[in-house]
C-alpha cells in the first residue's frame, strides 16, 4: 500500500486536468465533487499510507517512480521520500486542504469561475505534495515553483480588478527574488557535493564539510533566501498582506496553512546543512524574532480582518523560524501543524463573516455579530484562544515548546525567549482586539446580516477545525527519527507561569480597551507621537515605501530613460544603412531594356580592361 504514495499528487493533478480541459462546461456540483473529491481521495490514501508507515516501524520509505532526466552524473529521479517530516506535512496538506476545499465549494458557489478556481486549487495541492514528498531538491524546486505559480494565479483570481493583478504580480516578483537565491544554492550544492538527492546531499555535506565551513555557510544562506521569500519573513515579507486580495479559502490554504510554511519545511528538511553553519542558523532565529515582533506591532493597527490575520500568520511563521534558529526542529514543525489548524479555522471563519456581511472586510464596520453568526463566533473564539496559546489549546503546546527551547539556548537564547514572550503578549492584544470589535459592542454594519452564510459544507469544516485547534496539541508528531532526539529543556515553574500569564495579560488589555471600554483608544491616540507610530505601523514599518524608493522607482527610472532603447540603436543603424543603400541603388533600376544592355556591356568592358591591364 505504501507503494501507492505516487497516487497522492496524482488525484489532484487528474482533477486539475479534467477541470481545465472541460473549461467550465461541467455543472457546479460535478466540479465540486471533482475538485474537493480528488483532494479527499488524496487525504484518504495519505491516512492509509501513514498508518502503514507508522506501524511498519521503518524510519523512512523511498518509492522510485521514474528518472526525470539523466545528464552525465546528474539524474534526479521523480521519487517519493516519506519520513516523519514529510508524513506530517502530507497529512496537513491533504487534511486541512480537503477541509478548505469542502468549505470553498460553498464559499465560491456564486462565482462564475467556479471550475477555474478548483482547477487552480487542485494544481496547488499537487504541487505542494511534490514539494514535501520529493526525495531530491530538483523535484522539491518543481513543487516550490508550482505552488508559487498557483499562488500567483489565485491571488489574481478576480483579475477584473487591476489591484488584484498588481497584488498577484507583487507576490510573484518578491518571492522570485528568494527563489533565485535558492536556485543559486542548489547550483552551489550540486557543484560542491555532486548530488541533489536530499539525503545523499546531507550525508555528503556532513562528511566533507566541518562546522562553520564557508561553503556550508554560503549554501545555507542561499537556501534561507528562498525560505524567507516563500514564508514572507524579513526582508521579503511585503507581499503577504497584499496577497489577501485572493478569495478567502485561498488565504486559508495557501497564505496561512501550507505554502507560506514551505520555507520552514525547507530549512527543517536541510537542517543538517544549517547545523554545519551555526551563524546562519542563528540568523534564522533573528529573522524569525524580528519578523514576529514587527508583524505583531503592525497587526495592532490594521482594520481589515484578513490583513490582521495575514500579519498574524507572518508573526506565527516568525515563531517557527525562531524554533528552527534555536535548533528546536520538531517544535517548529509542530507549530507549523497546529498553526495550520487554527489559522485555517480563523481564515475560513472570517470568510463566513465577510460573506454574511456582503463582502465587508473592515472590522470597524462589523460589531455585535455574536448572536447573528454563532458558528463564526465559536470558530473565532477557539481559533483566537489557540492563536494566543491559551493553556491546553493546540497553540499552547507548540508555542510553549518553542519558547522553552529558546530559553535553553546559550547566547542569544535569552533574547529570543523574551522577544518571543513579548510577541505572545502582542498576539493576545491584536487577536482579541479583532475578536471583541467584530463580535461584541454595537453594530456598525452598513448591511447587518440577516442570517449566517453557509450550509453543512461550510460549517462542517469549521467544526472539524475547531476540534483540531482544541485538541491538536495532543497529537504526537513522529519527528524524532528525522531530527534525532533532543535533550528536553525545562524551565522553572515560575517562569512557566509567566509564559502562560503574558498572553492572558494581553487578552485582558484588549478586554479593557475594546469590551468594557475602560480605557479609550482615542485618548491613547491623542498625541502626535502615538499618531505617527500608528501610521508607521499601519504602513508596515515603511517597508513598501522603502522598497518603492530604492528598488521600484530606480528600476522604473531606468526603464524610462531606456525607452529609446540604447542597445537597439546599433541594430537600427544596420537597418538604416541597408535602407539608404537600397534607395541609392534602386535608382539604377529604370525598367529600360537598353539601360540594362548598356550596363552589361559597360561592365563587360570594364572587366576585360582590368583583365588586359593586369
Amino acid at each position, binding site marked *: 500500500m505504501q507503494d501507492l504514495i505516487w497516487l497522492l499528487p496524482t488525484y489532484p493533478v487528474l482533477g486539475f486536468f479534467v477541470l481545465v480541459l472541460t473549461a467550465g462546461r461541467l455543472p457546479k456540483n460535478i466540479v465540486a465533487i471533482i475538485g474537493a473529491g480528488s483532494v479527499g481521495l488524496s487525504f484518504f490514501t495519505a491516512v492509509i499510507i501513514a498508518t502503514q508507515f507508522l506501524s511498519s516501524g521503518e524510519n523512512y520509505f523511498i518509492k522510485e517512480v521514474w528518472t526525470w532526466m539523466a545528464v552525465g552524473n546528474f539524474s534526479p529521479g521523480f521519487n517519493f521520500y516519506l519520513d516523519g517530516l514529510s508524513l506530517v506535512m502530507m497529512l496537513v496538506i491533504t487534511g486541512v486542504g480537503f477541509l478548505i476545499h469542502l468549505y470553498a465549494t460553498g464559499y465560491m458557489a456564486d462565482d462564475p469561475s467556479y471550475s477555474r478556481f478548483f482547477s487552480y486549487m487542485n494544481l496547488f495541492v499537487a504541487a505542494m505534495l511534490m514539494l514535501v514528498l520529493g526525495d531530491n531538491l530538483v523535484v522539491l524546486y518543481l513543487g516550490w515553483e508550482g505552488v508559487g505559480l498557483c499562488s500567483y494565479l489565485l491571488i489574481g483570481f478576480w483579475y477584473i480588478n487591476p489591484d488584484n493583478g498588481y497584488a498577484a504580480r507583487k507576490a510573484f516578483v518578491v518571492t522570485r527574488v528568494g527563489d533565485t537565491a535558492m536556485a543559486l544554492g542548489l547550483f552551489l550544492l550540486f557543484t560542491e557535493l555532486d548530488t541533489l538527492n536530499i539525503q545523499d546531499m546531507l550525508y555528503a555535506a556532513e562528511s566533507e564539510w566541518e562546522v562553520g565551513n564557508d561553503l556550508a555557510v554560503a549554501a545555507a544562506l542561499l537556501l534561507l533566501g528562498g525560505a524567507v521569500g516563500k514564508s514572507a519573513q524579513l526582508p521579503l515579507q511585503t507581499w503577504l498582506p497584499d496577497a489577501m486580495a485572493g478569495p478567502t479559502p485561498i488565504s486559508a490554504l495557501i497564505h496561512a496553512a501550507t505554502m507560506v510554511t514551505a520555507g520552514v519545511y525547507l530549512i527543517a528538511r536541510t537542517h543538517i546543512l544549517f547545523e554545519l553553519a551555526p551563524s546562519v542558523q542563528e540568523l534564522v532565529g533573528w529573522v524569525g524574532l524580528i519578523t514576529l515582533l514587527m508583524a505583531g506591532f503592525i497587526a495592532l493597527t490594521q482594520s481589515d480582518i484578513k490583513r490582521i490575520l495575514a500579519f498574524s500568520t507572518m508573526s506565527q511563521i516568525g515563531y517557527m523560524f525562531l524554533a528552527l534558529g534555536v535548533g528546536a526542529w520538531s517544535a517548529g514543525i509542530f507549530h507549523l501543524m497546529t498553526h495550520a489548524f487554527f489559522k485555517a479555522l480563523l481564515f475560513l471563519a472570517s470568510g463566513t463573516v465577510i460573506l454574511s456581511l456582503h463582502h465587508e472586510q473592515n472590522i470597524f464596520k462589523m460589531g455585535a455579530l455574536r448572536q447573528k453568526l454563532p458558528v463564526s463566533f465559536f470558530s473565532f473564539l477557539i481559533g483566537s484562544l489557540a492563536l494566543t496559546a491559551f493553556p491546553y489549546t493546540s497553540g499552547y503546546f507548540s508555542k510553549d515548546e518553542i519558547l522553552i527551547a529558546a530559553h535553553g539556548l546559550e547566547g542569544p537564547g535569552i533574547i529570543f525567549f523574551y522577544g518571543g514572550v513579548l510577541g505572545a503578549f502582542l498576539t493576545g492584544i491584536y487577536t482579541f482586539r479583532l475578536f471583541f470589535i467584530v463580535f461584541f459592542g454595537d453594530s456598525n454594519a452598513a448591511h447587518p446580516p440577516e442570517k449566517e452564510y453557509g450550509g453543512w459544507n461550510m460549517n462542517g469544516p469549521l467544526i472539524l477545525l475547531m476540534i483540531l485547534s482544541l485538541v491538536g496539541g495532543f497529537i504526537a508528531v513522529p519527528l524524532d527519527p528525522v531530527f534525532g532526539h533532543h535533550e528536553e529543556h525545562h524551565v522553572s515553574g515560575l517562569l512557566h507561569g509567566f509564559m502562560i500569564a503574558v498572553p492572558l495579560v494581553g487578552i485582558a488589555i484588549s478586554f479593557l480597551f475594546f469590551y468594557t471600554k475602560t480605557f479609550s483608544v482615542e485618548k491613547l491616540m491623542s498625541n502626535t507621537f502615538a499618531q505617527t507610530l500608528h501610521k508607521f505601523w499601519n504602513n508596515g514599518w515603511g517597508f513598501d515605501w522603502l522598497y518603492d524608493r530604492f528598488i521600484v522607482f530606480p528600476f522604473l527610472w531606468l526603464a524610462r530613460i531606456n525607452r529609446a532603447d540604447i542597445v537597439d540603436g546599433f541594430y537600427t543603424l544596420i537597418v538604416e544603412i541597408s535602407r539608404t543603400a537600397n534607395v541609392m541603388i534602386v535608382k539604377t533600376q529604370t*525598367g529600360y*531594356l*537598353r539601360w540594362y544592355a548598356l550596363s552589361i556591356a559597360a561592365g563587360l568592358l570594364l572587366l576585360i580592361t582590368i583583365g588586359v591591364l593586369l
Partner: protein
Amino acid sequence: MESIPVEHGLILAAILFSIGLIGVLTRRNIVFVLMSLEIMLNAGGLAFIVGASRWGHAEGQIMFLMILTLAAAEVAVGLGLIIQMFRRYKTVDINVLSEMKG
C-alpha cells in the same frame, strides 16, 4: 589560294558586334532591336569560324552551328513575344516596356 589573315576576320567580327550593340542600345523599334541582336550573334559566329579555320579545328564550326540554331530559336520566341506585345500595347516601341522599375 591566299588565305585571309585572321586579324581581318576578327576586326570584321568586332565591327559587326559593335554595330549590333549600338543598334540594341539606340533603336526604339523592338523589331530592329531583335535584328541588331541577330547581327551580334552572327558576329560571334564569325569569330568562331575565323578561329577554327586559322587552327584547323572543327569545334569552331560546331559552335557556329549551335549559334545558328540558337538564333533561330531566339527569333521564333522573340517574334512571338513581339506579336504579343503589339497586340497588347498597339506599338513596337520598346520604351513602353519600362513598368518594372525600382
